[in-house]
């Protein structure tokens, strides 16, 4: 007797999907695709216990389950709410959700310095995307923003606490990926900040991954600091034999020079194979890597701005169809398009050759 795993049916924005029990609503939505997946600022699939902090992924549960069809009274964070059989979830179709998300954007941006022109994360920043896609472009906050003193946390990682949204991703990364966490969230409430305890430096083989998981520009690569904007660099897929990590990375080129190495991110901006600090910070020569090809980047991403590829240029299909319909094809083959033997056998050719010979004989005489 084979045991079929029980599957739960969930409807998200009117699209039905079957998932195994224990899946979160966010994961079920991601299974359907980008059009219904709620945005996530703090949830990071490869990191356990992440999620439930930023409230960006709030959704409306219109029907709890088939057994208990009452709706949930408040909006729920989809990244930490497991699905029930027969659950009906409304995401972008619910006005309350869309409205609340505008509020969430405003809340997240209350203390954000909005220094995108200076920030190295601009162009691949999740907060930028989230605010652009879900916010309403205005801010009512007039008071002075909270600022922190600059802190040096080592030679590789730049901490810009003003930009932090306290998603805790870097804390989970340090706990789960590296062997020993030296940084964490200090103080409480409005004074909460990411910091190392009494100005230690973060120094671990996998500590560089906090840069990749940071959704904003709070933790950035010091070796890449102000080198170039993301949209002027060219990402390439590359790998190398590394005894510490998988060695699969993206290289960010500026001309012939590698100016940054990052882990490979999937379509949700999550790194699945974390890379070590040697690969990230020390291998900055093309000869260190085996480059396999350019990274596939969405046409709408700013990273593909001012870069042209043959597959992005569209043929004028309408014009070609129109021309095919309205113009007769003409036979433009020429009667003298014969092969060489036929030409040599022709009368014209023979007379020409005779004339040539006569001329040569005359000139010799």
């Amino acid at each position, binding site marked *: 007797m084979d045991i079929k795993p029980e599957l739960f049916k969930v409807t998200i924005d009117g699209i039905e999907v079957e998932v195994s029990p224990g899946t979160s609503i966010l994961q079920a939505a991601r299974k359907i695709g980008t059009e219904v997946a709620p945005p996530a600022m703090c949830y990071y699939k490869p990191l356990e216990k992440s999620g439930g902090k930023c409230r960006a992924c709030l959704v409306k549960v219109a029907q709890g389950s088939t057994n208990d069809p009452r709706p949930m009274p408040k909006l729920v964070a989809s990244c930490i709410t497991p699905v029930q059989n027969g659950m009906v979830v409304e995401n972008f179709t619910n006005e309350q959700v869309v409205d609340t998300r505008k509020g969430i954007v405003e809340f997240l941006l209350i203390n954000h310095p909005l*220094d*995108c*022109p*200076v920030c190295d994360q*601009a162009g691949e920043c999740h907060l930028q995307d989230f605010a652009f896609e879900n916010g309403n472009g205005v801010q009512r906050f007039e008071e002075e923003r909270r600022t922190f003193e600059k802190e040096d946390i080592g030679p590789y990682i730049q901490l810009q606490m003003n930009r932090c949204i306290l998603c805790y991703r870097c804390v989970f990364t340090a706990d789960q990926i590296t062997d020993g966490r030296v940084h964490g969230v200090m103080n409480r409430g409005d004074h909460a900040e990411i910091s190392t305890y009494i100005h230690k430096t973060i120094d671990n083989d996998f500590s560089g991954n906090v840069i990749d998981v940071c959704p904003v520009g709070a933790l950035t690569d010091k070796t890449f*600091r*102000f*080198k*170039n*904007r993301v*949209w*002027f660099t060219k990402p390439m897929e590359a790998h190398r034999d590394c005894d510490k990590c998988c060695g699969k990375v993206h290289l960010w080129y500026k001309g012939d020079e590698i100016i940054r190495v990052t882990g490979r991110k999937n379509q949700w901006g999550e790194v699945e194979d974390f890379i070590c600090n040697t690969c990230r910070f020390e291998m900055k020569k093309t000869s260190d890597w085996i480059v396999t090809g350019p990274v596939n980047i969405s046409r709408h991403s*700013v990273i593909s*701005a*001012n870069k042209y590829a043959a597959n992005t240029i569209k043929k004028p299909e309408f014009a070609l169809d129109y021309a095919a319909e309205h113009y007769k094809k003409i036979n433009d083959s020429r009667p003298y398009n014969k092969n060489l033997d036929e030409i040599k056998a022709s009368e014209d050719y023979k007379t020409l050759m005779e004339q040539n010979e006569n001329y040569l004989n005359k000139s010799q005489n």
Partner: protein
Amino acid sequence: MQLTNRSKKTDKTALTLAEKTYLPGIAAGLGITLKHFFSKKVTIRYPEQKRYLGPIFRGHHILKRDEEGRERCTACGLCAVACPAEAISMIAGERVKGEENLYREEKYAAAYEINMLRCIFCGLCEEACPKEAVYLRHDKFVPVFTSRDQVIYGKDQLVEDMNNRYERDAWTKEEMTKLWEKQQKVITQ
């Protein structure tokens, strides 16, 4: 046979004695010439004199400084990515201690170059700039060049001179319409 009524009939009456001498005709002609000596000239002496091109003319680029003389540009690269001719390039630098009176933000443009052969003066860089740093002057052309190494403009040619600051009569569309209305009134008066 007359085909149209547009043709003019020639006056074929014989000339009078005065007309035969041509003197009145010459005097009248010279009179017209003399009148133009004293009337207002329609031409100007370009390039010493220049006409006003309006408050929104797009000419020579300028990298503005703020009231305290600090450079506004932070090398964010939005002008370069907005530029349809790809004429702008820049290299960013990090401000060190003691340079706070030179640069407004922690990052600045260590080099900022515009290739004037490529530039089409569309003004998209001006529109893209989030720091109100790059503008196209309404009062100055990019001069004619004689050699190719003159066309790449660096920061020395672009950054605003604090002793000779650039002021525009109108910065916004609303200000511009107001200015036009004022000028229209002056003309009609």
